[in-house]
């Protein structure tokens, strides 16, 4: 395990684990505190997996006592994680298309592995299907010039930036960045705060394109048993038989039109 602070209160943690073998972009792990008065695993999205798939990277913000404890962990420490959880992004929905990967704030980290997989896939398929090559554009929204993961993302494609204070890229949010750069897509993949996801849902509906958004909610079990982390659904859910889906096991990624957010 290694760890460093990459922006104020944002930490970058690599964990060596055999769980890394089967990670798909958009999946998450439950990270346990060592303080036994805090019981529940913290759901944190996976940012990246290393080349030989022996370690996974999480980038998280200190949001409370649990994540504060995580930030104090030192290289070599052993930690307990539950996973791999959730289904991740449906990569196949983007293949051969113009794709937006949109991330906001601490919703940016899971977009890195997604960008990487799209980049890898495009290289593989380019020869066999030259005109169907996936065109991936990343649009990332930050508060200010502390643009963590910027260099990482730029390895895998064209990246547009938006910052609330205008210090980097477009001043405003990710949708402002799209407009300013006059870019369009056939499909959107996104993760970020709820107001951003709502705006993306509205934009996608307006454009008549699908948007696959990653949701978060307070969770207890992480495996679909407790029904703590539900989201309202447009249709009756196949498992719950009510208008609720479990974010942990049915998500965390949903097509925006399927959920009431």
């Amino acid at each position, binding site marked *: 395990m290694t760890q460093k602070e990459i922006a104020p209160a944002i930490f970058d943690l690599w964990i060596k684990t055999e769980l890394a073998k089967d990670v798909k972009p958009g999946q998450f792990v439950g990270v*346990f505190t060592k303080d036994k*008065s*805090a*019981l*529940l*695993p913290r759901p944190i999205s996976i940012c990246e997996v290393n080349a030989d798939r022996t370690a996974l990277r999480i980038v998280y913000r200190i949001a409370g006592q*649990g994540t504060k404890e995580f930030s104090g962990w030192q290289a070599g420490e052993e930690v307990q994680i*539950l996973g791999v959880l959730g289904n991740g992004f449906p990569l196949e929905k983007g293949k051969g298309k113009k794709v937006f990967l949109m991330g906001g704030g601490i919703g940016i980290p899971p977009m890195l592995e997604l960008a990487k997989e799209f980049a890898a896939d495009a290289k593989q398929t380019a020869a066999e299907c030259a005109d169907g090559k996936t065109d991936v554009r990343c649009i990332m929204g930050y508060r200010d010039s502390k643009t963590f993961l910027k260099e990482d993302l730029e390895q895998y494609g064209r990246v547009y930036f938006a910052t609330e204070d205008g210090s980097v890229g477009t001043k405003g949010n990710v949708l402002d960045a799209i407009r300013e750069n006059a870019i369009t897509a056939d499909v959107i993949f996104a993760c970020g705060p709820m107001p951003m996801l709502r705006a993306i849902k509205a934009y996608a509906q307006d454009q008549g394109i699908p948007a696959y958004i990653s949701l978060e*909610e*307070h*969770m*207890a*079990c*992480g*495996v*679909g*048993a*407790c*029904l*703590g*982390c*539900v*989201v309202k659904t447009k249709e009756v859910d196949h*498992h*719950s*038989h*009510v*208008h*609720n889906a479990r974010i942990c*096991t049915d998500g965390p990624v949903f097509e925006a039109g399927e959920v009431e957010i």
Partner: protein
Amino acid sequence: MSENNQNVNMTAGANAENWAPDLRTRIAGVEFQNPVMTASGTFGSGMEYGEFVDLNRLGAVVTKGVANVPWPGNPTPRVAEVYGGMLNAIGLQNPGIDVFMERDIPFLKQYEKTKIIVNVCGKSVQDYVDVVERLGEEPAVALLEINVSCPNVKEGAIAFGQKADALYNITSELKKHAKQPIMMKLSPNVTDITEMARAAEAAGADALSLINTITGMKIDIHRRKFAIANKTGGMSGPAIKPIAVRMVYQVAQAVKLPILGMGGIATAEDAIEFILAGASAVSVGAMNFVNPYATVEILEGIENYMRQYHVEKLKDLIGAVR
């Protein structure tokens, strides 16, 4: 094993690996292979945790509460962590008895060694009766746990579990309709739990389970909002264990009914406390979320404890501390 063997040290326990303590236990005439069960609402119908533990090793799976029709449950956030535990206000989201009979019961029936206990909820007495009658058609259901103590739904549930006369009435009504024995699940959110236990016993209940969660509240001081959308939630987890042990003991002294004990059980040592206090079996709840292997680890721990202290039969531990 010699009955005269007074040697209770760890070495003696380790040497005695070739004898197996008798873990069987009975509640209301139903025999269970061991006393370790799941607490309703923390384990679904076992499908999710079947990936982690062999469900055939459990004494019983106690299902999530099921009503006559699907219930959507409460708005989110539904869960919050607190010191040594958690709050929840799921609001008994469930797919209704039709889906439950078609999907969940056949799933659980695959595990022939493990008994099925179904938790029943409702908003009116008739709702409960409807579910109890449907479950009567299914002989694989061994026992019904009647949820008259969920603190998170506006109507029904706890309204039947906080007044002795209401509890008496619903218990005696369900007794008329139930094919299986009924176990009333008691709320700790009462002045005197033994009064409720006596009312259930007088009305003909076959067993009791306790405790349900303790009503609590958490406020997010940064957002100045309740941590849970329902404002209040039921507290569970290790922090509530001493309250639960005390209540199990009090109820065991007050009535003759067998008790399924629960409330903050995290380890085998915790489970043994409940058994010594008078529980014939125990349920593991919130700890499943913390450690998906908790049930089986607790079962193995109880077995080791019995070997260590040369306890041949689990029933010799039940209510042994008075």
